[in-house]
C-alpha cells in the first residue's frame, strides 16, 4: 500500500471515522425536494393573484388616462406579484439544482418547469377564487401593500380633468346624487343621470367607487366639486365591501324613494 492509502487508513482508525449515516443524506434530499415543492406552491399563489389583478384591471380606460402605453402598463400590471413569482421560480430552480440529479438539466428547462408548474396550479387556484382572497388577505395584513394599490389607483383614477374620479361614498343624497371623498380629502358631488351605467350595482356608504364622467362647474355656493357620472364601478378590492349587502338598481331606487318619503313626513 502506498503512503497516501496508509495515511488515510490510519486516520480512519485513529480518529475512529465512520461514514455518515444514510438517513442524513435521505433527510437532506427530502428537505430539498420539500423546499422545491413549497416554492412551486407559493409561486402558484402569486400567479393566481397576478392573474386576478390582470383580468380585473381597468384596461379599458387607457384612452382616458392620458398616459403612454408603457406608463399605463406599469400602473395596471401587478409588478410586485410578478417579481414575487420570479423570486419563487428562482427558489424552485435553486432547490432543483441541489437535488441529486438536478445538475443534468439546463437552467432554462428548470425555470420553465417551475414557472409552468406554478402557472398551471396558479390558474386552478385563480379559478377557485383564491386569487382574489389572497389579494384581500395580503391587503389586510400588509398596510404598505394596500397603500401601494391605492396609490396606483389614484395615479390612474384621480384625474377629474380627464373625466376619471375615485373615492369613498360618504353621503347618499338621493337617487340622482351621491357625495364621494377622494384620497386627498376633496369632496365631490356626483350627479347620476339616466344614462349613467352602474356596472356593479349600487351604493352603500363607505364603498369605494371609480367613476368615468365629466368634471362639472362649481358654483360659489357649493362646497363640493361637481362631477357628472357616465359610468360607476365598484372597487373590487374594497375592504369594506360587503358582498351580501349588494342591492340591485331597482331595489336601491325603492330604498331611496322610501327614505325621501320618510324625510317628507
Amino acid at each position: 500500500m502506498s503512503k497516501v492509502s496508509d495515511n488515510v487508513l490510519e486516520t480512519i482508525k485513529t480518529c475512529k471515522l465512520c461514514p455518515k449515516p444514510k438517513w442524513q443524506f435521505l433527510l437532506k434530499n427530502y428537505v430539498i425536494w420539500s423546499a422545491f415543492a413549497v416554492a412551486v406552491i407559493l409561486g402558484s399563489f402569486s400567479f393566481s393573484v397576478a392573474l386576478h389583478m390582470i383580468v380585473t384591471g381597468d384596461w379599458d380606460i387607457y384612452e382616458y388616462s392620458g398616459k403612454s402605453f408603457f406608463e399605463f402598463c406599469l400602473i395596471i400590471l401587478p409588478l410586485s406579484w410578478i417579481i414575487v413569482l420570479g423570486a419563487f421560480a428562482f427558489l424552485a430552480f435553486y432547490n432543483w439544482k441541489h437535488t441529486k440529479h438536478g445538475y443534468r438539466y439546463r437552467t432554462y428547462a428548470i425555470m420553465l418547469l417551475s414557472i409552468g408548474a406554478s402557472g398551471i396550479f396558479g390558474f386552478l387556484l385563480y379559478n377557485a377564487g383564491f386569487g382574489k382572497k389572497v389579494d384581500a388577505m395580503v391587503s389586510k395584513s400588509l398596510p404598505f401593500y394596500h397603500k401601494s394599490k391605492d396609490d396606483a389607483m389614484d395615479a390612474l383614477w384621480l384625474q377629474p380633468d380627464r373625466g376619471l374620479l375615485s373615492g369613498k361614498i360618504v353621503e347618499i343624497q338621493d337617487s340622482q346624487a351621491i357625495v364621494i371623498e377622494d384620497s386627498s380629502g376633496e369632496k365631490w358631488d356626483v350627479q347620476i343621470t339616466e344614462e349613467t351605467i352602474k356596472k356593479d350595482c349600487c351604493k352603500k356608504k363607505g364603498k369605494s367607487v371609480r367613476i368615468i364622467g365629466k368634471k362639472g362647474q362649481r358654483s360659489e355656493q357649493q362646497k363640493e366639486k361637481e362631477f357628472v357620472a357616465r359610468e360607476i364601478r365598484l372597487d373590487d378590492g374594497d375592504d369594506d365591501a360587503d358582498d351580501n349587502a349588494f342591492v340591485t338598481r331597482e331595489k336601491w331606487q325603492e330604498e331611496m324613494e322610501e327614505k325621501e318619503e320618510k324625510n317628507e313626513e
Partner: protein
Amino acid sequence: MDAYQSLLRPVFMTKQATPTIDVTTCTDEQLVALSLKNPDMYALLMQRFEDRLLRYIMRISGGTIEDAQDILQDVFISAYLNLNDFDQELKFSSWVYRIAHNKVISHYRKVTARPKTTTYEGDNELLNILASDDDLMRDLDKKYTAEQVRAILDAMDERYREVLVLKFLEDKDYKELSDILQKPMGTVATLINRAKKQFREKSIQFINKS
C-alpha cells in the same frame, strides 16, 4: 443436558463455512458496499484510484507532489465519510473524480499564486488526440513536446483546461464528464467545443511567439 446438547450439536450447531469473496474481481460499487462494513476494504478502493487521481489532480492544478498528495488524502477521507451518499446510478470513478475536482477548486481558491502545472507522459499526444477528433486541429503542427502542450494548457481558461484533460487525457465520456463536473451534457459539449477552439488559438499564439 450435556448428552442432549451433544446429540443436537451436529444437527443445529454445525459451523457453516464462511463464503469467501474474491475482492480482486469485485466491481468498484461492490467494494463500496464492503467498505461500509469493513474499513480495510476501503484500502482496495483507494489502491485502484490513487494513481489516476493523483495524476488528475496534478494535471488540473499543478503545485508540488506533496500538495497533490495532501489533496488526494482529503479526497479519500471525504469519500469515505460520504460513502452512504454514493449514488449507485453513477460510476464510482465519476463520483470520486467529482470529489477530487471540488477539492482542487476549494484548495486553490485559497492560494493566490497560480501554480505551475506538471507534465506527464502522454501529454504531448494531446494534439494528436484533438486532431483526430476535430478538423480544426488537423492543420496544427503536431510535433510538440509535452512541456509545450502543458504551456498551452496553462495559458487556457481553467474550465476549458479541465474539460480537455478529463475528455482527452483521462478518457472520460460525456456522461462521466456531466457527472464529474455536475453540468448538463449539452453544457459539457459546448465547453469541449470552446475548449478546443481556445486550445487552437493558444497554439497559434504559441507558434507565433516561438
